[in-house]
């Protein structure tokens, strides 16, 4: 008996993805794949192409070349796959300032095809999980940066996507919330969610990721497994690529 295509395929597969921005290559010939339950940390200095990569994976930006597959399906041919399979938290968590926390979650839920009791259940679940219940009637425009970030994360998680794309998710979170975020991501991974997150913080990667990819000037320079005791090795690899890469470019 044939297993369904999505069960055999990686959750995310990028092949030869390239994208120019502002007249220069932002991402060049990027290929990587992500299995269910993996947490991939995307590292790189500012301008390395992390956010561009994540925006392409999230369907917000179209690559100039290459293919992106989500659960084995061509994402560029079928962008509607994003509706249920993908959750995205962009950098700085953009929100509608005139809507409340609850209205944000309802709107995102409906955009993802949730309604009725499924929407209520999903909304209440993420409000509880991300400690937003007491803020549910507050306007997004008056939230603190950390609260905005948690709301953005709640919107990305609401429909329980198979692939979670997070751009600097720990931004503006306090140390307690950072630890809670790490726990949440590990729980999601244990439940089979594939997570790709970009960050500047190496400690974040070693604490939560089981794989790391390092981008430099849009090119993938390193992609490998990671264990919690490899912080020093990762630091050396990262600085080798970032500093030597810069020196070579200069």
């Amino acid at each position: 008996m044939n297993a369904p295509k999505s069960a055999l395929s990686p959750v995310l597969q990028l092949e030869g993805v390239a994208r120019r921005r502002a007249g220069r290559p932002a991402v060049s010939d990027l290929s990587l794949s992500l299995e269910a339950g993996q947490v991939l940390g995307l590292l790189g200095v500012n301008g390395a192409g992390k956010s561009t990569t994540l925006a392409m994976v999230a369907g917000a930006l179209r690559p100039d070349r290459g293919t992106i597959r989500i659960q084995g399906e061509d994402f560029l041919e079928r962008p509607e796959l994003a509706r249920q399979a993908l959750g995205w938290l962009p950098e700085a968590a953009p929100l509608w300032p005139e809507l409340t926390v609850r209205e944000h979650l309802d709107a995102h839920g409906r955009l993802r095809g949730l309604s009725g009791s499924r929407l209520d259940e999903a909304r209440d679940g993420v409000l509880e999980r991300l400690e937003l219940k007491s803020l549910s009637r507050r306007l997004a425009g008056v939230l603190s940066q950390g609260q905005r970030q948690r709301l953005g994360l709640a919107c990305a998680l609401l429909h329980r996507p198979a692939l979670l794309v997070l751009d600097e998710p720990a931004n503006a979170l306090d140390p307690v919330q950072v630890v809670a975020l790490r726990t949440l991501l590990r729980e999601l991974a244990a439940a089979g969610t594939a997570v790709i997150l970009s960050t500047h913080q190496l400690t974040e990667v070693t604490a939560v990721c089981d794989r790391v990819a390092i981008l430099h000037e849009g090119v993938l320079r390193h992609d490998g497994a990671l264990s919690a005791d490899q912080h020093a090795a990762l630091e050396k690899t990262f600085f080798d690529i970032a500093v030597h890469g810069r020196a070579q470019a200069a």
Partner: protein
Amino acid sequence: MTLLAVTRLELRRLFVRPLGWIVAALALGELGWRFALLLQIFLLNQVKLAALPDGPGYTDLVAVRMYSSFITGSPLPLGMIELALLLVPLLTMTTLASERSAGTLPLLFSTGLSASRILLGKYLAVLVWLALWLLFALAIPASLAHGVTLDWGKLAAATLGAFLGLAVLGAIGVACSAFASHPAVAAVAALMIGLALNCINLGAQLAGINSGFINWLAMSTHQETLLRGLVSSADVVWFLLAIIVALALGVQRLAADKERD
């Protein structure tokens, strides 16, 4: 359905922002004042008008004149259509331009929505808002229906003309918002295009030319027929064409957002 999810989201945003309410309240206030003046003029001339065999009545001189001064030749400024030229751009300017400036537009794309669904969803929300505004405006002259002889057919045709005009201005506003990075730019662009579309044939009319392409191009030409109580499919098609062209341009621009730097 995701299209309706976008409509619902946009309607919610329109309802919670004070701008939409202020615009609607000011417009209805102006229309109420206009109604009182038109009624006063009508009552002053009622005896003279009654003597005419086919003289204009309440519908022609009050109800239909609520919709336009420019087209109906009313002595009072700013009927609903003229007000809409100024106010619809204020209502539509944020639909997409503010999504772009706030960074929420990529979020909408990331839900798998196509540019056409995003834009149509937003346009439907604007249309619902404008229809509600029109209903409230229609209620003003209709409130005297029990005491006057109202030509419902003529009023329905005029209301259709006003609604189609609002729908065209709404489509232009949403399209301008799709092109602009800032809401104010979208509002100014929509205002200028709306004015141009309404007045493009003024020069030709002053020169005594009442037919030809330039007159066909003007929205006022097609609204005039409807405000006189005549529903012609050619006029309705003009409005539909104008809406389709505006929305198609908006969709094209919005789709380019995913390709742009």
